[in-house]
């Protein structure tokens, strides 16, 4: 694996399957009396969160702690970040503290890339969501969850499985990372959204798109619902929430048209009654709570694979090699 995890596109199929296989071993740890491994003892992981995201941060924090790493949480509120410090000066501070990995969440697309390739820090950089760009560990945990449900035997793959990603694709970094990763793993992805919520250039992603949820559902093995990110919206993308919900929300009637083995996913936080109804969210097909458990295992796998080895001795000139 490379030294950083910035985009789901960085992962080859072998890399991605190595993460999934490692995550499967990490997940078994949850059943042990002592849920801790010594692999990253003495390493420091910094959670650098410029945007609020409690669930992602605690997931990374739990993952790092279970691998015995030291964790430093750095959030924008109440720190020097809110006093006007630049990304560069923050990075230099972290470097001076000796961080081995920096987990970054930032409102600006590309901020983790800047951090990784500027030479400001020598640590590994993990993108925990940047703007409307990418969220690769979410895609990995989604793929891991699908893998566990649809390809239970060892060695099976997601080849040929159909995944429908439904909702606010335009503002969703999860959708982009999932589209990239799931195609790497051989799955067929269909993005379902109103025309106003599909990004420009979606035709270059190599995925199918549809405006009609009812036509897509009977063929899908996985339905992933996305939250409508109203905090990122300035302008009208659909007439009313009620109309959106009727055309693109997953309710009990629509769920009944799914195949028997199909599962329902949501990256959270979900808005019940908007993109997903309460009875669907609480149904047997919903694996939403399991996604959270799997998130810790997948993030452990990522941190382990990025940090445990020896080739993290910083190379003087660039590290793209």
């Amino acid at each position: 694996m490379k030294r950083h995890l910035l985009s789901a596109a960085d992962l080859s199929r072998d890399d991605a399957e190595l993460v999934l296989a490692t995550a499967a071993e990490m997940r078994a740890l949850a059943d042990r009396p002592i849920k801790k491994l010594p692999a990253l003892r003495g390493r420091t992981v910094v959670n650098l969160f410029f945007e609020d995201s409690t669930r992602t941060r605690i997931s990374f924090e739990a993952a790092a702690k279970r691998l015995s790493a030291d964790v430093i949480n750095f959030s924008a509120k109440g720190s020097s970040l809110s006093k006007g410090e630049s990304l560069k000066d923050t990075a230099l501070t972290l470097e001076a503290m000796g961080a081995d990995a920096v987990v970054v969440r930032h409102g600006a697309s590309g901020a983790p890339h800047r951090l990784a390739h500027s030479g400001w820090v020598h640590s590994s950089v993990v993108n925990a969501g940047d703007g409307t760009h990418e969220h690769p560990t979410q895609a990995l945990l989604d793929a891991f969850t699908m893998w566990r449900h649809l390809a239970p035997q060892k060695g099976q793959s997601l080849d040929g499985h159909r995944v429908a990603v439904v909702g606010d694709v335009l503002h969703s970094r999860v959708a982009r990372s999932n589209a990239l990763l799931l195609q790497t793993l051989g799955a067929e992805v269909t993005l379902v959204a109103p025309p106003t919520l599909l990004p420009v250039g979606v035709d270059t992603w190599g995925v199918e798109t549809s405006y009609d949820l009812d036509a897509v559902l009977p063929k899908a093995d996985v339905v992933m619902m996305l939250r409508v990110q109203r905090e990122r919206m300035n302008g009208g993308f659909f007439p009313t929430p009620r109309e959106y919900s009727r055309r693109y929300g997953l309710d009990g009637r629509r769920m009944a048209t799914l195949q028997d083995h199909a599962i329902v996913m949501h990256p959270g936080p979900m808005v019940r009654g908007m993109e997903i109804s309460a009875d669907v969210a609480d149904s047997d097909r919903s694996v939403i709570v399991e996604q959270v458990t799997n998130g810790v295992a997948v993030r452990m796998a990522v941190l382990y694979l990025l940090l445990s080895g020896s080739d993290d001795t910083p190379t003087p000139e660039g590290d793209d090699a």
Partner: protein
Amino acid sequence: MPAPQTEAVPEPGRIVLDARDVARALTRISHEILERNKGARDLVLLGIPSRGVPLAERIGAKIAAVEGVEVPVGSLDVTMYRDDLRLKPARTLLHTEIPADLDGRTVVLVDDVLFSGRTIRAALDALTEIGRPAAVRLAVLVDRGHRELPIRADFVGKNLPTSLVERVRVTVAEIDGDDSVTIQERGGS
């Protein structure tokens, strides 16, 4: 994903144990385990991946044939507990499967080759985080000497005095297609 080494190229080397020798050694180890433990009660066999696992399964089958009791057999990956984790690129994790509660039982670790003793040290560390066995024993197919830690095996298939420049290669049918133990001069691979 790095697959288990299954290259079928027959490397030159001196065969020390062939398939029948391996079978006899495992039979003797099985009997010694039963004798030492006074039966199969509270035994748990844990193989160390990758080649310790099929060996543990075979010992388990032999014990079942002799005593008529199914002994829980599992695997214990020690990668995370190795002392050289930081010195090498990230290693692939292997499968850990704990078949029964270990508290108060006698755990027999099974590995193919006992060399420096560092793998077994790591295994002992891993075990303490999983449970508190009444006793831990060690069974190996080959003991090649050169210990770097105060660790010894309780059950040994064959003591094989080697020089440090030699390599001991164990193949098992489940992974490599056949059972053998060979000694090779280092440098070939």
